[in-house]
């Protein structure tokens, strides 16, 4: 006798069977896999739409006119042809960005007057329309005048770079979102269920240490989280052309960050699962911790677009640290070394939560 219980085998078994149980659990599937996939699909589609402006051309116009021809051929402009009245009301509603009238000047054959009407309802698009049409009119003037070597030439040099799309911003946020969901929804509701149903108590009648149970459960979540990150990245890269700056190296860096992030977020999960006695007392706690983070941590839109007084809070949230670290790797093509400041911030949160959890955890 006096044999210390072999906790390693117990740990492996809890990890394995808790993992098996979770793969058969609907909420794991829902929060961990379906949610993030639906989100990245939506973001992927948003990212693929090209920014275009719409210009209305009255049906009474001479469609062979050079200016109209050039407007129609411009890749940045969509044109709609309709009667003047309809177009005027559409421009008021902001459905189209500009209305182009081209009328021949009295007498002269090759002389025209172009009038562009823009709307105040979308000033940004109005400005774009104005610039585009002005450019086309100038170009047409040069062509009509037969000038082939203009005195002032204008050349644009394009530096090849990646077109930054919304998915490139949103996908890193989705990794954070799914990890935080797993660590909080999964762990809190999972543990509360096992507590209430006395599953844990029954296991305590065996020579299993409490920490073995928590480590095993945590490990099983970690395995789930790794699958989540892989799934998000694979779908992101192959379906929505998410860009990994250094290919497989970036992928591995993201896996390491995910493990780090999940372990820190698990601290929150354990803290709340230990504090709450049932789902009802857990719900407000969970909302308090997750909702502000989903909104403020740069998951759906950048933290920099928030009002300045929120920024000090927003940038120091655990999920913000995680998201920033991930974007250092993906958007900026950095290395793990560059993420150290964020990982330190995340560690402070994580350690705080584990200490609180250790002090307040109730098994019953």
């Amino acid at each position, binding site marked *: 006798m006096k044999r210390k219980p072999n906790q390693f085998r117990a740990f492996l*078994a809890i990890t394995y069977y808790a993992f098996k149980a979770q793969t058969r659990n609907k909420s794991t599937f829902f929060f961990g896999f379906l949610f993030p996939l639906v989100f990245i699909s939506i973001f992927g589609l948003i990212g693929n739409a090209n920014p275009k402006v719409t210009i209305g051309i009255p049906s009474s116009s001479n469609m062979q006119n050079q200016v109209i021809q050039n407007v129609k051929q411009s890749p940045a402009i969509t044109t709609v042809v309709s009667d003047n009245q309809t177009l005027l009301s559409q421009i008021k509603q902001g459905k189209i960005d500009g209305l182009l009238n081209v009328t021949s000047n009295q007498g002269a054959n090759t002389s025209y007057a172009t009038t562009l009407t823009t709307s105040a309802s979308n000033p940004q698009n109005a400005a774009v329309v104005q610039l585009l049409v002005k450019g086309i009119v100038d170009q047409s003037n040069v062509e009509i005048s037969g000038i082939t070597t203009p005195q002032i030439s204008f050349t644009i040099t394009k530096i090849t770079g990646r077109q930054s799309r919304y998915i490139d911003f949103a996908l890193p946020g989705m990794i954070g979102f799914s990890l935080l969901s797993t660590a909080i929804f999964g762990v809190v509701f999972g543990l509360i269920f096992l507590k209430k149903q006395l599953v844990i108590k029954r296991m305590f009648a065996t*020579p299993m240490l409490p920490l073995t149970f928590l480590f095993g459960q945590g490990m099983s979540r970690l395995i789930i989280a790794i699958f989540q990150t892989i799934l998000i990245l694979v779908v992101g890269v192959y379906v929505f052309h998410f860009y990994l700056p250094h290919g497989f190296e970036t992928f591995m860096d993201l896996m390491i960050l995910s493990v780090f992030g999940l372990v820190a977020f698990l601290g929150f999960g354990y803290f709340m699962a230990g504090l709450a006695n049932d789902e009802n007392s857990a719900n407000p706690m969970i909302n308090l911790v997750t909702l502000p983070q989903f909104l403020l941590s740069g998951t759906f839109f950048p933290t920099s677009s928030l009002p300045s007084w929120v920024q000090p809070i927003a940038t120091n949230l655990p999920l913000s640290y995680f998201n920033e670290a991930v974007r250092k790797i993906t958007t900026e093509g950095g290395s793990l070394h560059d993420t150290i400041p964020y990982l330190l911030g995340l560690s402070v949160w994580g350690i705080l939560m584990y200490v609180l959890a250790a002090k307040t955890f109730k098994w019953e």
Partner: protein
Amino acid sequence: MQSHQNEKAIITVSNLHKKFGDFVAVTDVSFEVKKGEIFGILGPNGAGKTTTLEIIETLQKQTSGNVIVDGIDTLKHPWDVKRTIGVQLQSAGFYPELTLVDILQLFAALYDVEVSPMKLLEEVELQDKAKSYVNKLSGGQRQRFSIATTLVNTPKIIFLDEPTTGLDPQARIHLWDMIKKINQKGVTIVLTTHYLEEAEELCERVAIMDKGKIVALDSPEALIKKLLKTGFKKHIEVKQADLEDVFIQLTGRHLHEA
């Protein structure tokens, strides 16, 4: 029923007290369980049966008093006690997403022993349900499965907290047979129950608890004899008295739950 009264005590409970805040749940409880016997703890709701059992099982800590299980002090070496015993809780659940075989394998790993899940399931006649989930079992099947989990570590003693509560008479008799079979293999059994015929049927000795105290402790036959000696007469003379009369006499007729 073979007597075990000359055997050594495998469990010795001495002067056990348990308080929850100011509330006294168990007070000055002492008894012995002999090696190989089926020992029953009877008592109305809230009498302190579960509390007493869980203290012996090392799931709760006593306020004072001593418990020795198979020569081991439960406070000093809880891990060794846990390895020696098998525990069925009054209403414990299991992972709902795992099959019966999975759960038995998990428990084997927790005890660090090797088991054949199918053999354990055969012992409780659940081999057909090997791939089912606990939630899909009937009440009787669930209790039998719960007993199977207590056998994983081939324990010397198993504790069954109200194993037959909520079962129909047939399922109950079935479970009695199962409990007797396990006992015949040499496993000491401590069980609690509200059913007096169950105690009469299964238990070599019973302790009757009320309001945290043991109010009587003897074999069912001896308890009945003792009551008859006091001049007790049953109104309808089918049988002069049964254990139910002892029980009611000792714990009162009123409903104990507030």
